[in-house]
């Protein structure tokens, strides 16, 4: 390459405009934003999350309206137009969770983490920046997707639909977005704890999908004491308009979910400081 003949290219002589500032949380956040937007997988996975949320909401709205007469009377009585059009979160949470994990494990798998910690050797600012950024991004996008799913879904439900002013509608929409953002930050923490993509994704899916089902095999007295505290069930109680009467309150469910996220972040922070990168 012709540029090689330019010689050793001393770094100082042509660096009159080189200013170097101290590492701050805001600068680490900016760095993480650049990293996040410069990977194609970010846009694709977030798009998958949005499509899951919106498309499923519309499909559930349309399908229930078209087949309303075939529903049994008890199904009709229990039908919640709010919950039905927001049900896409069950799929969206998987996309959000996988991307949250990948933001971290992708760096461990490629060795990028050494460059990251070379620039930010205190390490913890990286955890906080990734967690903050991903919470913000997922909450904003999923709030938009939930509104779109709800509004479009109600249109498609026709006479069986409801409006934003209905009791519990806004709480459900904001709650779904909040739940997905918390799942996002939880998976970021999980990525720092486990560090491998396969292990983190398996753990996340086990917690969100497998444990709630497995738990149904427990004696019912155990079920009542354990199942409401799983993140997926706590999330559902937090935002669903229709919930079982013996479920936790919405506030308690939110606290339970925050407890999961807080514990995961604390474990990630401790391990991040202790372990070799």
């Amino acid at each position, binding site marked *: 390459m012709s540029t090689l003949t330019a010689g*050793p290219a001393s770094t100082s002589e042509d660096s009159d405009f080189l*200013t170097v500032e101290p590492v701050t949380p805001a600068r*680490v956040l900016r760095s993480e934003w650049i990293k996040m937007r410069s*990977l194609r997988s970010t846009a694709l996975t977030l798009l998958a999350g949005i499509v899951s949320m919106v498309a499923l909401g519309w499909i559930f709205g349309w399908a229930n309206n078209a087949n309303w007469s075939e529903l049994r009377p008890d199904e009709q009585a229990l039908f919640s137009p709010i919950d039905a059009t927001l049900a896409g979160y069950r799929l969206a949470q998987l996309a959000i969770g996988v991307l949250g994990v990948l933001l971290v494990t992708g*760096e461990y798998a490629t060795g990028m983490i050494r460059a990251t*910690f070379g620039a930010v050797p205190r390490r913890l600012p990286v955890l906080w920046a990734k967690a903050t950024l991903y919470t913000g991004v997922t909450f904003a996008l999923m709030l938009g997707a939930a509104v779109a799913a709800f509004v479009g879904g109600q249109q498609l439900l026709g006479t069986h639909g409801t409006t934003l002013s209905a009791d519990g509608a806004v709480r459900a929409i904001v709650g779904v977005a909040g739940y997905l953002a918390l799942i996002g930050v939880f998976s970021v923490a999980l990525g720092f704890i486990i560090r491998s993509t396969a292990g983190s994704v398996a753990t996340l899916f086990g917690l969100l999908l497998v444990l709630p089902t497995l738990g149904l095999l427990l004696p019912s007295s155990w079920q009542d004491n354990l199942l409401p505290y799983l993140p997926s069930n706590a999330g559902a109680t937090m935002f669903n308009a229709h919930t079982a009467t013996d479920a936790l309150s919405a506030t308690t469910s939110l606290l339970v979910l925050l407890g999961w996220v807080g514990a995961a972040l604390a474990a990630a922070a401790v391990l991040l400081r202790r372990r070799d990168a």
Partner: protein
Amino acid sequence: MIEAKNLTKKYGDKVAVNDLTFTVQPGIITGFLGPNGAGKSTTMRMILGLDAPTGGTVTVGGKPYRRHAKPLQVVGALLEARAVHTSRSAYNHLLALAATHGIAKSRVAEVIEMVGLQDVARKRAGGFSLGMGQRLGIASALLADPETLILDEPVNGLDPEGVRWIRDLLKGLAADGHTVFVSSHLMSEMALTAEHVIVVGRGRLMADMPMSELIAQASSSVVVVRSPQAAALADAFVGADITVSRPEHDTLEVTGLTSAQIGDQARDLNISVHGLAAKKASLEEAFMDMTRDEVEYHAHTPTGHHIRSAS
């Protein structure tokens, strides 16, 4: 300036770095030499705070690396294993690192040009050749114009032009007053670039001296003498420090005497000499001897077997 004091790293029972104490001075290139597995990379990772020492301390510019407010301005590092996300472009990789220290985009463009990657800067780093990957690593290391450069095997996988480029770059940086610490398992490469050398074997410090001194030590004073009366001449060389061997019928290898002494003595005995040359042991040989000793040392200690099987 890098200062290591009693630096030790153990992985379970295996001692990767064993009580290393050394100082790397600014203004010169210091070579960090040792066979693969000698603990060079682990030592460099400890300097950068990526691995925590089991014992001892290491500081850069008087403080542990992680205590610096602008770490990239203190140390720029190129580690042996790649440290780049394969799906991200070289430009965005550098931009993300620059953002942590508020470094301008113009500087990113500058280092890209400096290492000659401008044609591929927008392409995925995963598709880079080994040489291009090394160049990107150097660009990252130079980003904040650091006082100290740490490079782990920088010429690995480079073509001759690239090797020369690295050598010139390092010499230029050292001449500008930077501290340059470069590891290699190749003595010959170090002999060309380093002014000072730190040699490790099995995690232990073997030597810490100017390169010239190491070269002088390595050039052991073996003199090769060719003579038709080799046997008669051999009998004449007697002394406590003198050893003589006769690898061939008409050839002697003598240690403990200079060429001049041997020539004079042959003349006095009226023995004709057809060849007289000081044989220089190669640096590579000296280095191998040094580290071979270290391996044997461990093999004879009670825990030696364990150390060997664990490695």
